[in-house]
């Protein structure tokens, strides 16, 4: 009898708090978005599952001694995002960007979303009940980088309490890129601009591809050492792939290793989706600012492309500017799709890949600035 009572008192039904129930629903919502809607499933599925597991009463899976507690160390120590970045580097082909380097500036412009939403977060302090420090604001702004590992890395350093909301916002908006970007792109461009055909990309030699990650690393060492953990691991992965002499390492980095770390990282991020941390007005602010960041980043990229088009001797279709936010390769595909709507023979995909991967570099640089200037 005693046993039965103690058992009843140990059931989830007996111990649930409203917050836990709500967060578990958020977890199921993320699973639904991942599985049924195909929203960045590789990350939202483990994150959603982690959210469910960490909000189970009694079990304590994300408390000391629980699995998610240990996995979270991989984020806390900055290991998981860097290993993922290495894998992403190994998967990235810089060819289209090297063929048309000026598209790098589009990747720079789109980072304006980061700093605009940083400012927005600070402005939201005017709203009663909201209080974002500069560190919080910077971590929120990085959502605009449209790059998962970078966002998680920066948030884990500057505002670990907001990590869950920031990661969810970042991956959700990355999945929503095909919905968020097109109206902005159409609003800021004329039909004539969207029809612009671009020159074919020149051939890029293997030597250039091998040298590029080293040049990138060198520049970030000289100018912005605080960005080198991110840029360095990205360059390592890219070099392993482009050099052609360590294929077995490159393959493992972009397959098994990144898969293992992705499962662990997703679960660990999910473990930060606790009721206390997530169910705050802050979270609404973060979600709103994230959307703003994506929108402003997209707009900045497009406008920059329009400016460049005016001054460039070769034509630039402004649509590819939107790809500068990163969100590889989704944003580049969106640019391609909108371009095809205006001109069914105009394939912008390769041209958009340049600003797209440049956006990854741009957000890593922006992350370095934030990490270096904010104490």
């Amino acid at each position, binding site marked *: 009898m005693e046993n039965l009572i103690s058992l009843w008192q140990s059931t989830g039904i007996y111990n649930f708090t409203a917050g836990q129930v709500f967060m578990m629903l958020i977890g199921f919502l993320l699973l639904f978005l991942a599985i049924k809607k195909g929203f960045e499933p590789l990350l939202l599925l483990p994150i959603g599952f982690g959210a469910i597991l960490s909000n189970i009463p009694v079990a304590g899976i994300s408390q000391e001694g629980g699995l998610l507690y240990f996995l979270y160390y991989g984020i806390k120590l900055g290991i998981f995002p860097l290993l993922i970045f290495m894998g992403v580097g190994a998967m990235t082909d810089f060819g289209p960007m*090297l063929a048309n*380097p*000026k598209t*790098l*500036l589009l*990747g*720079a*412009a789109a*980072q*304006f979303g*980061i*700093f*605009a939403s*940083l*400012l927005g977060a*600070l*402005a939201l*302090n*005017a709203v009663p009940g909201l209080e974002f420090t*500069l560190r919080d*604001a*910077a971590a929120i702004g990085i959502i605009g980088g449209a790059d998962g590992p970078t966002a998680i890395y920066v948030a884990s350093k500057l505002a670990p309490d907001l990590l869950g909301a920031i990661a969810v916002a970042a991956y959700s908006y990355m999945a929503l890129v095909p919905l968020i970007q097109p109206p902005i792109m159409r609003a800021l461009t004329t039909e004539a601009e969207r029809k612009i055909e671009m020159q074919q990309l020149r051939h890029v*030699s*293997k*030597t*250039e591809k091998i*040298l*590029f990650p080293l*040049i*990138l690393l060198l*520049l*970030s060492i000289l*100018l*912005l050492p605080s960005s080198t953990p991110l840029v360095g691991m990205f360059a390592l992965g890219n070099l392993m792939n482009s050099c052609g002499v360590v294929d077995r390492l490159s393959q493992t980095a972009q397959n098994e290793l990144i898969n293992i770390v992705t499962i662990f990282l997703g679960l660990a991020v999910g473990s930060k989706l606790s009721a206390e941390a997530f169910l705050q007005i802050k979270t609404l602010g973060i979600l709103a600012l994230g959307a703003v960041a994506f929108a402003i980043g997209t707009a900045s990229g497009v406008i920059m492309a329009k400016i460049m088009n005016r001054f460039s001797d070769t034509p630039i279709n402004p649509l590819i500017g939107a790809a500068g936010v990163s969100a590889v390769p989704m944003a580049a595909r969106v640019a391609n799709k909108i371009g095809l709507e205006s001109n069914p023979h105009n394939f912008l995909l390769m041209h958009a890949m340049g600003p797209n991967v*440049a956006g990854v*570099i*741009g957000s890593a*640089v*922006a992350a370095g*600035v*934030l990490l270096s*200037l*904010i104490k």
Partner: protein
Amino acid sequence: MTELMSSGLELMLAGMAIVFLFLAMLVVVINATSKLITRYLPEEVASHNTVSVATNAETNKHYIAAITAAVHQYRSTH
């Protein structure tokens, strides 16, 4: 509060400046590298590579022949 905003604004200016500066320098360096490569190690690089690869390939062919022969010899007797 206003202080916070102003440091945010400063951060934005510094940040965008650095991001642009960084990527612009990257543009310059990439262009320079590409020119250097096409000038100083144009098809030379390619051919140099091809030669060394060829040498390697030949060496490898020798190795492979040797290995194949050895393995064959080794196995054929058992």
